[in-house]
């Protein structure tokens, strides 16, 4: 972005507009509010000029010109609508429709079809064509991609998005002339990343989704844009929902709303893997163990039993005899509520979650710095990117997309350091293969520790790489969980020296949020050490939070085996399978699991509560870069409850005043202080904050937004624009500056999820679509173990 491009003046339909030199005419017009129709042109993909819909009249040119191939010129005089152009477009539609079947009533695209819209606009309704149309049979290319060949209008969008956008190149063109046909890479089927981008980008109904085919019609659904619940990238997926017997059924996921952080992108998980929510094996009623069998029960009985047991253990053995395990897939509000519940109601710091990245170490290393984290959007515009470890194509598909597009469209330089031949090497300016496990040594080498180079690889190549990196302005460094603990510090030092920004890659949808919200035995929300809880900070916790660090997840299980942990509360997690823990450790521990399925952990529980998934509730997620986004409730299963509600109801059943957990207001009472236990004379800090922010107090104890207020108040970095957040925009959060000192980070406890494009922990196990694609078998590494969480 060194110098702004020259501006060019031109006249379009009598309106004077300016556009940067080099802009395509169709884009310049669009920016000026003049829409030019087109099938084959797609922003960000190579120019095609095939559909001839964008013809415009440019003065001094004898023929009509395609505005998608014409670059704006100084003094250009353009007409985008007149009789000649209208006729040209109309006849183009007549030609397309000559061989396009008129089966709109059955076609999945009916109602959201660009060809339909244009036919309405240009009135090519009367058919001049009386001969027999060319027909070819429909093909199934994969469980998720169907191709109805006669409907194809050969705009080549799918071919380009698959090749240029996804770098998969699975689609191509066979034959010529009117026999031209889009063909998959394996003759009669596709072997690809099954992302379904080709379906989304298809302007007609030629490519249809196996998951949604012939189920319903676009106008029959509500379209809810929410955040995907799979990997840590935080793509927005638009879920189409429709009323069903049990609430709202999710019919499809797609990306019609392109306003999200992911733009055009969605991978197979975001698009198809919502089907775990309608899996018949899903638990829909609470289960209580009676006579060593889990039997259906009412919610009230379950709450009653849990409350009495937890109270009994707390009052008899103290809080340290209770453990709480949180989830990487619950919302920030639920995570915050869970740790608050553990610390205030259960009086314990024994709270942990499955750690997939060393966020405390990252925050420690960033102490004393400002604005050193990059957002997902930064990746798409940074002039250079350094990627250490991880395989974004498999584990962070959006990150990989951002990188690929940045390299392709902006000529960004990608430096990749990895111990495997990952696919992004194809986009890399420099790809450096290092020996496995030497990522940390590479970080040391970056800050000038030349002796570290010997264990990494060829010193000469490394030196030249380091020299190049030192010369990069605006570098973004993304690193996987290979770099943790002491190795993050040198990386941050190097980033500081070149003015780079950092991304610490974690694996699940809200891994970052779980860390930020303090699902740690030794850290409060905002990475505040429990041991330093004094003064006004202590007041925030009403002086009631225990100040002794609690047990980590592994310690809880050994404590349970040793009979010291009497109760365990697991929320949306499957530690037994994930850490391969001894199931008998829990035999004397009262265990409550809330989950969607009977996982290895849930089968051991005394009470299993059916929980709603992230598509069935509101709240916020923080992606791996720290971008905060809003979740909106899409699906609904009437008999399950959100984790938020379950936690509040357990606290209530235990006799705890829930106002102390969720700062909601009972309607007309303006004084919030009393509801939060503030005595007379003591300022209610939360109310002061609410007033200052102009936020109304919430009326429901189950409204996560009531807790979002508190999170925004108490967690440093989360004080982002509420307006933008509620409008559905991603808001980058900064990590809190902890000043001096080190945070306890336990790098040895980090276990990466090992998920691929086609697996997604427990959700992936119960997603029929993910398991149906043939690439699924190939993709899972043999030693990955049981996918959990």
């Amino acid at each position, binding site marked *: 972005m060194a110098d702004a491009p020259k501006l060019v003046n031109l006249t379009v339909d009598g309106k004077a507009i300016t556009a940067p030199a080099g802009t395509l005419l169709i884009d310049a017009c669009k920016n000026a509010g003049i829409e030019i129709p087109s099938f084959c042109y797609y922003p960000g993909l190579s*120019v095609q*000029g*095939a*559909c*001839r819909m964008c*013809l415009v009249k440019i003065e001094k040119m004898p*023929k*009509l010109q395609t505005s998608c*191939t014409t670059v704006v010129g100084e003094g250009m005089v353009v007409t985008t609508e007149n009789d000649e152009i209208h*006729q*040209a477009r109309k*006849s*183009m539609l*007549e*030609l*397309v429709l*000559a*061989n396009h079947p008129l089966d709109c009533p059955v076609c999945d695209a009916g109602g959201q079809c660009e060809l339909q819209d244009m036919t309405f606009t240009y009135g090519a309704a009367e058919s*001049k*064509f*009386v*001969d*027999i149309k*060319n027909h070819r049979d429909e093909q199934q290319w994969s469980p998720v991609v169907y191709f109805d060949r006669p409907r194809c*209008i*050969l705009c080549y969008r799918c071919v380009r998005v698959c090749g240029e956008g996804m770098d998969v190149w699975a689609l191509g*063109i066979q*034959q*010529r*002339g*009117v*026999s*031209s046909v889009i063909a998959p890479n394996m003759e009669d089927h596709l072997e690809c990343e099954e992302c379904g981008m080709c379906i989304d980008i298809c302007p007609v109904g030629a490519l249809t989704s196996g998951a949604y085919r012939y189920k319903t019609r676009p106008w029959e659904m509500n379209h809810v844009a929410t955040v995907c619940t799979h990997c840590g990238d935080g793509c927005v997926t638009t879920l189409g929902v429709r009323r069903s017997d049990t609430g709202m059924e999710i019919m499809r996921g797609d990306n019609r709303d392109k306003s999200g952080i992911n733009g055009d992108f969605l991978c197979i998980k975001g698009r198809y893997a919502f089907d775990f929510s309608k899996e018949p094996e899903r638990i829909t009623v609470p289960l209580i163990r009676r006579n060593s069998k889990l039997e259906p029960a009412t919610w009230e009985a379950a709450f009653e039993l849990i409350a009495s047991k937890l109270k009994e253990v707390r009052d008899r053995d103290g809080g340290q005899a209770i453990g709480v395990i949180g989830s990487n897939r619950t919302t920030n509000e639920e995570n915050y509520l869970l740790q608050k519940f553990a610390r205030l109601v259960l009086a314990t710091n024994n709270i942990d979650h499955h750690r997939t990245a060393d966020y405390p170490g990252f925050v420690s290393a960033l102490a004393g710095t400002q604005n050193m984290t990059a957002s997902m959007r930064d990746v798409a515009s940074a002039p250079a990117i350094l990627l250490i470890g991880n395989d974004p194509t498999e584990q962070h598909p959006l990150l990989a997309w951002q990188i690929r597009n940045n390299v392709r469209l902006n000529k960004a330089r990608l430096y990749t350091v990895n111990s495997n031949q990952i696919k992004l090497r194809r986009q890399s300016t420099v790809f450096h293969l290092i020996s496995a496990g030497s990522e940390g040594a590479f970080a040391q080498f970056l800050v000038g520790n030349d002796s570290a180079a010997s264990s990494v690889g060829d010193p000469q190549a490394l030196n030249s790489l380091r020299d190049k990196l030192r010369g990069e302005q605006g570098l973004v460094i993304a690193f996987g969980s290979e770099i943790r603990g002491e190795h993050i510090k040198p990386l941050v030092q190097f980033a500081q020296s070149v003015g780079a920004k950092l991304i610490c890659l974690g694996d699940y949808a809200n891994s970052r949020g779980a860390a930020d919200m303090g699902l740690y035995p030794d850290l409060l929300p905002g990475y505040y050490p429990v041991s330093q809880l004094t003064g006004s900070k202590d007041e925030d916790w009403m002086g009631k939070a225990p100040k002794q660090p609690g047990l980590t997840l592994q310690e809880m299980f050994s404590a349970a085996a040793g009979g010291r942990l009497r109760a365990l509360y697991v929320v949306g997690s499957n530690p037994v399978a994930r850490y391969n823990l001894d199931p008998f450790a829990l035999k004397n521990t009262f265990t409550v699991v809330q989950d969607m399925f009977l996982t290895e952990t849930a089968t051991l529980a005394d009470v299993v509560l059916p929980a709603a998934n992230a598509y069935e509730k509101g709240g916020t997620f923080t992606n791996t870069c720290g971008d905060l986004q809003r979740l909106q409730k899409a699906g609904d299963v009437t008999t399950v409850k959100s984790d938020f509600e379950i936690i509040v109801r357990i606290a209530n059943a235990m006799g705890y005043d829930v106002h102390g957990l969720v700062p909601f207001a009972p309607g007309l009472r303006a004084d919030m202080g009393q509801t939060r236990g503030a005595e007379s004379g003591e300022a209610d800090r939360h109310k002061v904050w609410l007033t200052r922010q102009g936020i109304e107090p919430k009326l429901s104890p189950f409204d996560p937004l009531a807790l979002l207020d508190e999170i925004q108040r108490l967690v440093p970095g989360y004080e982002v624009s509420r307006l933008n957040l509620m409008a559905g925009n991603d808001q980058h959060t900064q990590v809190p500056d902890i000043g001096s000192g080190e945070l306890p980070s336990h790098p040895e406890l980090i276990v990466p999820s090992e998920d691929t494009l086609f697996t997604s922990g427990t959700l992936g196990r119960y997603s029929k679509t993910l398991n149906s694609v043939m690439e699924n078998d190939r993709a899972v590494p043999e030693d990955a173990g049981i996918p959990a969480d």
Partner: protein
Amino acid sequence: MADLVSHPAEVKVVSKRFGKGAANIDRYLELDGYKAVQKALGMDPDAIINEVKTSALRGRGGAGFATGMKWSFVPKQSAKPKYVLCNGDESEPGTCKDRLILEHDPHSVIEGVMIAGLAIGARIGYIYIRGEYRYLSVIMEKAIADAYARGFLGKNIFGSGRDFDVYWHGGAGAYEVGEESALMESLEGKRGIPRIKPPFPAVVGLFGGPTVINNVETLASVPPIILQGGEWFASLGTPKNGGTRLYCLNGHINNPGVYELPVGFNLLRMINEVGGGIWKGRKLKAVTPGGSSCPILKAEECDIAMDFDTLMKAGSMLGSGGVVILDDQTCMVKYALRTIKFYQHESCGWCIPCREGTDWLKKSLTRFHAGAGLKKDIDNIQYLAENMLGRTFCALGDAAAMPTISIVKKFRNEFEDHLEGRPCPYDPEAVTQQLPVLAGAH
């Protein structure tokens, strides 16, 4: 081996070595071979281009762009290598001149490529030979090998210290590849699909380098121009239309064949004198003057000079010199159908109007010719062709639309004769069974 014909009215420049065994390099050298390139080696590149400009040589491939002008567009300095490309993908129905040049005088093409290379500063030339001309590639391969063996090609050509390489490349059988940018795609190993212009090949062409691409006949005309001077060449033709052309007379005449005549030769004379008149004593009905993509001329329009500008004024084109003569017993609907069948088969399928339009036209005309036509089909055919014209990605759509429009306009009566379920009235052997008129189509 095609039979050679000749006529006293011919002016032999390009075809002067035809039938003299010039495919043999020794024989070629005896017939003034490789003298022009040696002369050009001693000339300044600008002088070569000026000589060609003076000659008023215009491209023989169809569009008729001034060759010297084309060469002068190539930038002098270029980071990428420059290329000379010889377009031997001669596929226009009715045109068969390049085939004779490649067969009888392959060295003149190599020489032309070399001179063009010297003029623009290229060191590599490609001769692209149509896929169906497989036997010509054998001749060309031998010619190139012989030239290398004599040191005319390769390092230090003719001891001048300069290098030049020539390769031949065979097509896979696609008319579309005759379009210059599609030819470059094909040569690069991709699908033969035209490129978006600009940039033009002179700036970004083959493998991204500046490229001059010329027809076989154009390049074969260059050595005589260098040897005998541009003015001499220009004087053979009419103003702005220098030199001679190879006219491929075919169709319903007595002496079909390739004749080299000055540009601007009268069409009627060409048919009656050179071609020996219409066969079987019939009368002339129509002529396609420059290959099947040109608008047709009715018999009464045929008293015309065959040069680019005059034909343009008459609403047709000189094109690639394929003169197709039709006698008065020809069914024009059938002729239109035959033409459109070709374009439907050869359309690359890239853009909508050409892909769908040619198919639609073919379907309509097939039905029409078989006698199942409707009155509104005549207007529909014209409407379709007019809406294809000028809106396609490359010129192939125009090439299909232009003859169709002209035939419908000029021979509407013949279309009307096919109406009401009558099969072709001109063809006694036409389908005898009556096709049903499509139900509800009126």
